[in-house]
């Protein structure tokens, strides 16, 4: 189209253009991780969570079995000295949540799942949201997201040497294994504490930062039950029990306690509990007023992404909230696309 007009440097210019375009494409591919098969992506974490029988289509990729609740978070005002978040000003705030089991199988038998969880979303009038997802162990199983991935891979292998090798490489798993083996089971979601485990930074009205962890402590008295006895009560006993308990006994309560780290405490490692004598502040009470099945319930649409935080709370040096946020989002994208596999009304799939 412009024959005869190409200057002498035409070839060099073409090479330069090709290099710019090729280099740009290569940089993009590198950024996307296409040259980095070893990078821990949300896809790889979800692949590690997926059981051999296949993904739980239409469900969360972990903590897949659960039941919705709604209620209120009643702030007593004590949290305001730690964080300027509106949710700590004395008052009542709508709460939406989900009791769940730490399994990728939405049809798991309750007595086969050691870890129980609670997802929670508290909304304030200014439209801010605080989302969190807590579990009942007092500390997390591992120190890093990579170690969690490795745990999933090792525990999925039939070879017993795989777990041995994992524990050798990740000795922090020892206390968690001991907890799993020895901590008493209960027969109710209502009798469990739910621990945030990850640390976050609270910023007070004066701009002061406080690194904290939080827990929900049940007002219901835990009644130990053996795993065998729980199994006898049926595969979905926990959901039946919590529904019945709220229906007959009324609202359930948990006290939210925040624990403030001292300088030097392991804020980046949720597998390490902080010393018992750390300052604790009771900031409010979660009141669970209504239970609804997940299929058509209000918690179904919610991703309890722990990085959704109001002003006055932010992530700390703990690497887990970012990793969880990334993986939870991927899980949400997947299950939203699979909604037809988990239809909202009608009978359950055979």
């Amino acid at each position, binding site marked *: *189209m*412009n024959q005869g*007009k*190409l*200057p002498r*440097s*035409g070839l060099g*210019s*073409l090479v*330069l*253009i090709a290099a*710019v*375009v090729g280099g*740009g*494409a290569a*940089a*993009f591919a590198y*950024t*996307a*991780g296409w040259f980095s098969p070893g*990078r*821990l*992506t*949300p896809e790889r*974490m979800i692949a590690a969570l997926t059981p051999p029988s296949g993904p739980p289509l239409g469900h969360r990729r972990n903590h897949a079995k659960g039941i919705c609740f709604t209620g209120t978070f009643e702030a007593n005002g004590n949290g305001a000295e730690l964080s300027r978040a509106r949710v700590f000003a004395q008052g009542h705030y709508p709460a939406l949540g989900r009791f769940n089991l730490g399994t990728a199988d939405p049809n798991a038998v309750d007595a086969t799942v050691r870890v129980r969880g609670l997802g929670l979303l508290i909304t304030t009038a*200014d*439209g*801010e*949201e605080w989302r969190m997802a807590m579990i009942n162990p007092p500390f997390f199983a591992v120190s890093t*997201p990579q170690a969690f991935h490795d745990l999933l891979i090792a525990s999925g292998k039939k070879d017993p040497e795989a777990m041995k090798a994992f524990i050798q490489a990740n000795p922090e798993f020892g206390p968690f294994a001991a907890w799993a083996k020895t901590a008493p089971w209960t027969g109710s979601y209502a009798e469990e504490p739910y621990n945030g485990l990850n640390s976050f930074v609270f910023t007070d009205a004066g701009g002061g930062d406080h690194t904290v962890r939080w827990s929900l402590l049940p007002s219901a008295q835990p009644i130990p039950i053996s795993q065998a006895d729980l199994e006898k009560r049926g595969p979905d006993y926990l959901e039946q029990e919590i529904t019945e308990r709220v229906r007959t006994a009324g609202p359930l309560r948990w006290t939210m306690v925040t624990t403030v780290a001292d300088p030097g405490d392991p804020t980046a490692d949720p597998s390490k509990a902080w010393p018992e004598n750390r300052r604790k502040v009771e900031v409010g009470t979660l009141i669970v007023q209504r239970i609804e099945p997940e299929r058509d319930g209000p918690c179904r*649409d*919610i*991703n309890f*992404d722990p*990085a*959704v935080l109001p*002003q006055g709370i932010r*992530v700390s*040096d703990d*690497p887990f*909230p*970012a*990793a969880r*946020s*990334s*993986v939870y989002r*991927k899980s*949400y*994208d997947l*299950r*939203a*696309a699979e*909604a037809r596999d988990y239809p909202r009304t009608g009978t359950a799939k055979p």
Partner: protein
Amino acid sequence: MTSAPHRFALIQRVLHWLMAVCILAMLFIGVGMVSTVAPKYLPLILVHKTIGVILLVLVLIRLALRLHYGAPPLPADLSRPMRFGAKLSHQLLYGLMIVMPLLGLGMLWAAAYPVVLYGGIQIPALLPQSDLMHTLLWNAHVYLGFAFFALVLLHLAAGLFHALIRRDGVFESMSLLPLRDRVTQAK
């Protein structure tokens, strides 16, 4: 030569290059943030959302400026296919600049995520939660994002082609640098 404007207005040129930097950054941040679980995921997604909303505002200003000032004419000797390609690619670029932030916002709304930008600025949701809508918007955002990057590379290649090979003043019409004496192309 001097009768018709042969350059875009300064404000148009400034906006072009500002948005070029932001759009390239957005494409790289977008593809990078969804492929990591590292702590940088959270600042990346915050920046992505914030720049995305800024770009939506900027493209509307830019469109208004384009309608007001117009564009310098393409060189008379440009072949018809190249004219057509130039026109089509610019329409696609404008379309993507407008649509991409809207798809991004829409997919977050349809997933019931609060949209909070840098500095705690909240964008109210204009869509209800919907699995189907989220899936549609999310897929469109992702795949059009790849198409956008391909188009940006093509645009870059075409710009360099005009600057280095054709030397026909098209690149200079958008350049931020002061115009040198326009060289005559025929030798």
